């Protein structure tokens, strides 16, 4: 083995956020010229560690060395000077600026001492584009680029700033398969031809296997494993990430599907930017059935769920819940027809963070007889008792039902949302990303609750970016890609590896499902 030069060295780095130890005494050496993958579940501390390297956080304890030089002051400016660049999960681009303007931001070429030299900026970027073979139009406005190109702009930006250590935070989360392939090619090229060091933060294990030289595994803020990629396989990494070789949980399914509870016919709706997001989707769900929706995030699943819940206007098609057409009804009216909904974003939609836990658990029931006299006078004692009951039943941990919901951790806030929605005796459940950021024990109990609802005869639409979750719980699975359904399967009729084709709009998948090519 050749002598390895250290590119980055963390020594006993710890990072404490209010109440959470995000990094716990991490010591790690990353070699020059390698692709290093850092894996772990959500909240394992990967991003925090890399944000420290990029100077966005000052570690609570410990030191970071870049090429042997200790980092004195933590700031992005300092990191840039030391040759560290980072492509964040959420892109750091100014939407109204052009590609070139974003790339040269903070080091703009000038003419006559003061004025911005737009021409030179574009020329510089053009040269950069040619040097690295990352083609993108320097004059295009970033707001008009797709996410794959935006990511490319991010990479160019770090290269322009002279980075030779490049951190990529979950780079493929928003990419199409073609874009992912392109990205991988770019990474290989800059490592092999330009001798750069790439640190890849991810939780997709096949990316680790495909791309990296070494891999570090984080769990609960600690570095729990450090291996040469060729010495490990996906299964070993998965068990290191979760802490045990978890057998996929099996849930007892009882009863068989009954009559149709939800019918969706040719549904179309727009996303927040006013572009078509769901382009004519049809399916139905029967009572006692869980229909899982598999897909890479951003392929219209969120908009589909919001449209059914009445939170997003339909632009075509129709939805029937238990035979009732819901087009144009308010969310409250749709709930009245027997729908409960766990939304994907608990902080923005699922809860009021300023309101206390009681108010959050009570919402939707405030006018029920047992909580209000004559629908007007609130019975606050009854509300509190009810909230305490749910609080205990769902094992919510926090300062109690009088504390603001915003003071709860993400997982416990999710339990509040789940507790509230599952307390409705609804025949139809829309459930989006039910266990995102929730610890394993709580996730399991949420899964059990979902299956219990199914066994009790509810129709469930389950949308999740977590493929394991979809496979574990669903009776039927549909795949979505670019606003269309690309495949439909009964549980057990397809392997996880195979479904990826359908989720990525592969031509084979289109062929299978009879969709016409775009």
């Amino acid at each position, binding site marked *: 083995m050749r002598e390895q030069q250290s590119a980055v060295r963390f020594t006993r780095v710890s990072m404490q956020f209010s109440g959470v130890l995000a990094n716990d005494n991490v010591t790690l050496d990353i070699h020059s010229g390698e692709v290093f993958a850092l894996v772990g579940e959500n909240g394992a501390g990967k991003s925090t560690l890399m944000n420290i390297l990029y100077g*966005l956080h000052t570690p609570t304890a410990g030191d970071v060395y870049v090429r042997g030089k200790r980092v004195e002051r933590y*700031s992005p400016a300092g990191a840039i000077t030391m040759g560290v660049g980072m492509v*964040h999960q959420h*892109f750091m681009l100014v939407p109204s*600026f052009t590609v070139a303007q974003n790339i040269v*931001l*903070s080091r*703009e070429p000038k003419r006559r001492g003061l004025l*911005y030299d737009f021409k030179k900026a574009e020329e510089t970027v053009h040269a950069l584009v040619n040097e690295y073979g990352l083609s993108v139009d320097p004059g295009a406005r970033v707001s008009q680029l797709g996410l794959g190109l935006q990511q490319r702009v991010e990479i160019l930006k770090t290269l322009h700033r002279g980075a030779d250590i490049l951190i990529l935070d979950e780079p493929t989360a928003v990419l199409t398969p073609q874009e992912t392939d392109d990205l991988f090619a770019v990474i290989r090229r800059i490592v092999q031809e330009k001798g750069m060091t790439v640190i890849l933060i991810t939780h997709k294990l096949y990316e680790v296997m495909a791309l990296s030289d070494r891999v570090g595994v984080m769990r609960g803020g600690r570095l729990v494993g450090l291996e040469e990629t060729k010495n490990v396989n996906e299964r070993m990494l998965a068990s290191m990430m979760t802490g045990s070789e978890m057998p996929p949980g099996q849930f007892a399914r009882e009863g068989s599907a009954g009559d149709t509870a939800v019918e969706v016919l040719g549904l179309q709706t727009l996303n927040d930017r006013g572009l078509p997001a769901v382009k004519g989707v049809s399916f139905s769900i029967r009572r006692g059935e869980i229909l899982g929706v598999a897909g890479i995030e951003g392929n219209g699943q969120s908009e589909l769920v919001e449209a059914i819940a009445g939170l997003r206007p339909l632009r075509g098609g129709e939805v029937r819940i238990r035979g009732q057409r819901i087009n144009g009804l308010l969310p409250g009216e749709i709930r009245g027809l027997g729908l409960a909904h766990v939304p994907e974003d608990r902080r923005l939609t699922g809860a009021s963070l300023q309101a206390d836990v009681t108010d959050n658990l009570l919402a939707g029931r405030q006018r029920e007889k047992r909580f209000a006299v004559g629908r007007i006078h609130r019975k606050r004692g009854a509300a509190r008792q009810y909230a305490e009951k749910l609080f205990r039943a769902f094992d919510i941990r926090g300062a109690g039902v009088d504390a603001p919901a915003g003071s709860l951790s993400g997982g416990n806030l999710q339990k509040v949302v789940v507790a509230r929605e599952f307390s409705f005796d609804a025949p139809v459940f829309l459930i989006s990303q039910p266990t995102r950021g929730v610890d394993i024990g709580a996730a399991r109990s949420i899964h059990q609750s979902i299956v219990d609802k199914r066994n009790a005869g509810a129709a469930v639409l389950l949308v999740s970016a977590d493929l394991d979750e979809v496979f574990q719980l669903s009776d039927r699975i549909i795949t979505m890609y670019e606003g269309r359904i690309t495949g439909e399967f009964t549980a057990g009729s397809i392997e996880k590896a195979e479904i990826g084709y359908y989720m990525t709009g592969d031509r084979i998948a289109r062929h299978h499902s009879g969709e016409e090519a775009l």
Partner: protein
Amino acid sequence: MSDIFTIALLQNTLRTATPIILAGLGVLMTDHVGIMNIGMDGMMLTGAFFAVVGSFYLGSWLGGIAAALLAGVLLGLFFGVFVIKLGSDEFIIGVALNIFAGGLTVYLLRTIFGVKGAFSDPAIVPLPRFVWPWLEGIPVIGPLLSGNTLLVYVSWALVLVCWLVIYRTPLGFWLRAAGEHPLSLRSAGISPERMKYLASLLCGVFAGLAGAHLSLGYLTMFTENMSAARGFIAVACVIFGAGSPPRVFLAALLFGFIDALGLRLQSANVNSNLTAMAPYLVTVVMMAVLVVRTEARKKRQIQTR
């Protein structure tokens, strides 16, 4: 009608538009860094007061402008510390700033000059007025360009300078990045907070100039609450102008015109209360129209896609 639409009407338009232009440029600065400065009215009022103080005690209009600028910069810094450093709500601070300015100026008016309501004195030196006889010969343009006070010309120049800075220099890009996507600026190694402070300070400078024009250019006196909600109209102008200095300038001219027209109609025996109402009513109507129009444009864009 002919005695209403005269050169004097246009001259008055320029005169009344100038404080709104200056205040609008100030609001625009904070708007670009993502802060809505509802406290502009109070900052302007304070500027107007200290312009009179400076001019009266130092015996020169330059002293007046210097004092107004100092007051404006201090208030801008004050606003910045609260909104940027302490993370206070910009709206509450703005409202409090307006009340504070109203109280402070009247209190000081009483304690320094011993008068209530208004203070005028021959010792207050007004801003210089520039008259170019050779220009006045040209019809319409001549009388408009000649005979204005200093800050009228300065405001025109500043519209151009602001536009240049915001859209044609790196600094302007940093300011806009600080408002539009602060994290991208921070990750480029420039502190968005620093940009926000800079904008707050510049806002204070413009507020000071706007105030100085009110009390030394427009009139040569200070009266209680003489900003008369012009700071708010400036905010509305920035909304109409979508942050672009020339468009803010045009919006301000429109308000100046309505204001001046009101004064003219008054002399034509239209009730002064009705004419005074006009600029405020127009603001409300225009805000609604603006929203309806942008909505319609968005719809068209989606359909053409």
